[in-house]
């Protein structure tokens, strides 16, 4: 039996109040059982955020446990603020991807900006310096009235924050689909580098160790923001119920990065965690929980931005740019001096205790006294029913009986389609160069970073394929992992590990839970096949508007490693006369393709994916790179082989073209515009062909043409166009639809 007293004037706590906090009757009963009494209003708020879907993973945890998390290279798996892998020479790469979907829909600039800020803190809290960011963005149809506003806000926010904090944005993806008209996705990834011995933990230790608060003062920002918003569907009312929006302050974040990394070097930090969703509550209870200890907080000492915040508000505030640190006893002054140097103030607000309680004091009284375990390990877990939809999954758009377009016209339309056209107007707004590690930035198959003072390097890519996932959530998830891994292998890096952001609808609906369960199964099967453990991630449920869920969207980021980064491969052709070679695991199809979507033709069902052959393709690409057999490699994705060939011509500095022999039926849509199967277009000197064939055997390796000195793209007998003309279509499509930026 614990003691915590209600404050005068506090709202009454009963089942109705619990329900208004998003708790069920059973959950409220469990809270009363745990405490042996009715919770105070403050405690009710604390339980509601910690037991929310967002913080507790109560619907997903059972399934996430099935993912492969172990690997020879894994240094830190799921459970800390981010995962970490060994990348050689004593360096570890720390990375994670996280969603900020709902806040970005409500307030696109600040929502996206604080998404970037949050994921950066997850990285440097581990003791790693963030060196690269990526973003996966999903908007509604390009002609939807809100899309332009949302794109400008989200892209502005990512740039405004990332550019100002000095972490380059090196890759990403942008997709437009009517399935996101009422619920956009903003998934932010960040990667940091640390020396292995500098890695930090968020596991509290040392009874009596002081708890320090560092960074921005606490305001009423986003109370119940991430936790409640991300745990309930949108409706017309949510506009009115809007909590105070979190505003990002990248300047303070930059100071926090420098100060925290410097403070870590002192060795005076026992544990450190950022105050993210559910702020002070989650950071303090999670750190204590991991360490099997207790914590006591004195809320009167918390720096406030405005007077008269209640304990409830202080504990649930999601003000940005705040860190919680457990210091080694007696070394507080040493840490304070480091923070002062950076014009930040470290304030002792509590201490670690040995009694396993999470206790908060305010104006002389105890306002919350809860077993730590109840907020972390003992949170409810659900095994929600999952069942496929009654009818067979249908395509995202009904197939109208439209005749297939003439192939040359189809090619021009595809090049300019919103999901194929150049993303330059977006990535030009991001600093991709700061920190001097960017060997290949946005626009290629995967970003390539060098590791200074070493020959080693990293490749990063984030991908998703909601159309395939809508057709078949299991195969779609596999196709997504294959694509991200293939992009990384195309630049010559060996795929090493995965982080994921699983975006789905309301898990209380069996068909959504089924999508999720199948998606996790696909992710697990492919991650096992590629020996790429899933080391961190996040689940975003309730992506629905008025009962309509988004297409299932597992977003997959793959990080690959180079033993010698100078062996990286570009996606564009480099020498006239080189053979153009198609390497693929299976014949292409129009299922879930851009072609089927754009021209509204039936694409059919997804074909099964042979993961052994997919693995062969990845290994082959890496081996070819290591043996310097290729002069370019480019993944075939949206728009199929024809579009991939055009893209390989666009970015060649020498203004090259290509002449491709007729393939199968000339102009055949499946052959030229089909997707689905894993195909790669490589170019190489003719004398390397035999070695390439041997490496990829038993996959199909077929020379299809030559790189040409003249900047024309000739495809069989059906297409012959000036590369500059095509490129104009490619470059001008998005600015034309979304507004020009130059």
């Amino acid at each position: 039996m614990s003691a915590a007293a209600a404050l005068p004037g506090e709202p009454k706590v009963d089942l109705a109040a619990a329900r208004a906090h998003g708790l069920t009757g059973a959950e409220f009963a469990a809270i009363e059982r745990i405490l042996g009494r009715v919770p105070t209003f403050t405690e009710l708020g604390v339980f509601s955020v910690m037991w929310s879907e967002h913080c507790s993973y109560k619907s997903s945890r059972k399934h996430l446990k099935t993912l492969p998390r172990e690997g020879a290279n894994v240094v830190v798996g799921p459970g800390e603020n981010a995962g970490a892998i060994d990348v050689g020479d004593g360096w570890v790469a720390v990375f994670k991807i996280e969603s900020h979907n709902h806040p970005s829909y409500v307030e696109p600039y600040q929502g996206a900006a604080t998404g970037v800020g949050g994921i950066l803190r997850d990285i440097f809290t581990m003791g790693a310096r963030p060196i690269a960011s990526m973003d996966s963005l999903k908007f509604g149809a390009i002609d939807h009235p809100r899309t332009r506003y949302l794109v400008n806000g989200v892209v502005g926010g990512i740039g405004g924050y990332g550019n100002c904090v000095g972490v380059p944005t090196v890759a990403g993806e942008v997709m437009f689909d009517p399935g996101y008209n009422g619920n956009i996705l903003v998934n932010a990834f960040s990667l940091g580098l640390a020396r292995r011995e500098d890695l930090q933990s968020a596991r509290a230790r040392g009874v009596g160790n002081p708890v320090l608060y560092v960074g921005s003062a606490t305001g009423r920002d986003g109370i119940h923001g991430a936790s409640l918003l991300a745990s309930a569907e949108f409706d017309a009312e949510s506009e009115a119920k809007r909590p105070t929006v979190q505003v990002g302050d990248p300047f303070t974040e930059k100071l926090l990065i420098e100060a925290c990394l410097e403070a870590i070097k002192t060795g005076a930090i026992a544990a450190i965690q950022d105050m993210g969703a559910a702020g002070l509550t989650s950071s303090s209870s999670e750190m204590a929980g991991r360490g099997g200890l207790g914590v006591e907080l004195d809320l009167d000492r918390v720096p406030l931005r405005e007077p008269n915040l209640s304990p409830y508000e202080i504990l649930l505030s999601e003000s940005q740019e705040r860190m919680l640190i457990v210091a080694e006893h007696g070394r507080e002054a040493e840490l304070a001096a480091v923070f002062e140097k950076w014009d930040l103030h470290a304030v002792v607000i509590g201490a670690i205790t040995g009694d396993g309680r999470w206790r908060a004091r305010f104006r002389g009284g105890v306002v919350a006294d809860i077993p730590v375990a109840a907020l972390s390990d003992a949170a409810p877990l659900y095994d929600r029913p999952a069942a496929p939809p009654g009818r067979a999954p249908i395509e995202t758009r009904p197939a109208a009986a439209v005749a297939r377009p003439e192939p040359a016209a189809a090619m021009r339309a595809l090049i300019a389609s919103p999901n194929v056209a150049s993303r330059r107007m977006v990535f030009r707004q991001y600093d991709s160069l700061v920190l001097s590690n960017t060997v290949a930035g946005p626009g290629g198959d995967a970003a390539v970073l060098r590791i200074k003072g070493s020959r080693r390097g990293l490749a990063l890519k984030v991908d998703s394929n909601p159309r395939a996932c809508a057709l078949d959530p299991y195969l779609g998830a596999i196709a997504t992992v294959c694509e991200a891994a293939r992009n990384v292998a195309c630049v010559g890096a060996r795929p090493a590990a995965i982080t994921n952001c699983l975006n789905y609808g309301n898990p209380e609906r069996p068909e959504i839970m089924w999508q999720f369960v199948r998606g996790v199964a696909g992710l697990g099967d492919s991650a096992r096949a590629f020996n790429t453990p899933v080391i961190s991630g996040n689940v975003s449920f309730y992506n629905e508007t008025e009962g309509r869920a988004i297409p299932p969207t597992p977003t997959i980021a793959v990080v690959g490693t180079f033993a010698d980064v100078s062996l990286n491969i570009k996606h564009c052709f480099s020498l006239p006369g080189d053979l153009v070679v198609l390497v693929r695991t299976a014949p292409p199809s129009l299922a879930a393709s851009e072609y089927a979507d754009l021209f509204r033709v039936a694409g059919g069902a997804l074909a099964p994916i042979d993961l052994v052959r997919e693995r062969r393709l990845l290994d082959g690409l890496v081996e070819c790179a290591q043996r310097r057999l290729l002069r370019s490699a480019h993944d075939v994705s949206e728009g199929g082989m024809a579009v991939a060939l055009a893209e390989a011509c666009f970015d060649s500095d020498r203004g090259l073209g290509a002449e491709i022999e007729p393939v199968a039926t000339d102009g055949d849509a499946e052959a030229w515009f089909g997707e689905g199967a894993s195909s790669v277009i490589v170019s190489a000197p003719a004398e390397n062909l035999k070695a390439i064939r041997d490496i990829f055997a038993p996959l199909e390796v077929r020379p299809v043409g030559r790189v040409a000195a003249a900047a024309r793209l000739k495809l069989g007998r059906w297409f012959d166009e000036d590369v500059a003309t095509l490129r104009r279509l490619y470059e001008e499509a998005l600015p034309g639809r979304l507004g020009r930026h130059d």
Partner: protein
Amino acid sequence: MKWGVVRFPGSLDDGDALWALRDVLGQEAAPLWHKEESLGGAECVVLPGGFSYGDYLRCGAIARFSPIMKSVARFAADGGLVLGICNGFQILCEAHLLPGALTRNRSLAFVCDFVDLRVENPSTPFTRAAHRGETLRLPIKHGEGCYVAPEDELRQLEERGQILLRYVDERGEATDAANPNGSMRSIAGVANDRFNVFGLMPHPEHAVEAALGGVAGRKIFESIAGAAR
């Protein structure tokens, strides 16, 4: 020679400038803390890129008041070499060590890209390793790089040869289409009238290695190192 790279709160490319100078070009270079007044015996002071103090008021407006800037102003008055890159250029303008001002890009958007620059005056300590009309390919990355100055000031800058770099197209012409931010007269970099203070929006420190954006930026640093010798 000895270089000092100033670190303000919110400086971002300070590490890149140090990397380029020390690790790539083999120069002696050290960071200078904004709260200090000592320049540590530097023969050239670099004000790096970034968002000093978040650039929340006007770019460079707050940084110019830091203790180190008093020393930088004195150093410049004594003829010392000062190089301001991007945010450093903005700070030098705010501190009136360079003429003109930098305002929001014409597009109102941040732009990160590689641009071609034409060397307009190769007889300065910052450009002497280049020749007149030579094109340098350097990256830019800024939201407020639109150079503006009164018309008579611009005329004087032209007459005295203080305009050192202009944005040009692939044929070397200073066209409107090749101007990435709307700068008056396509100005990318200017010097003071004594030619010991130089500010530019492009980032030479991000173009010193062939594998990472080319080596055109070396021309600027090699000019300075040669000038001091």
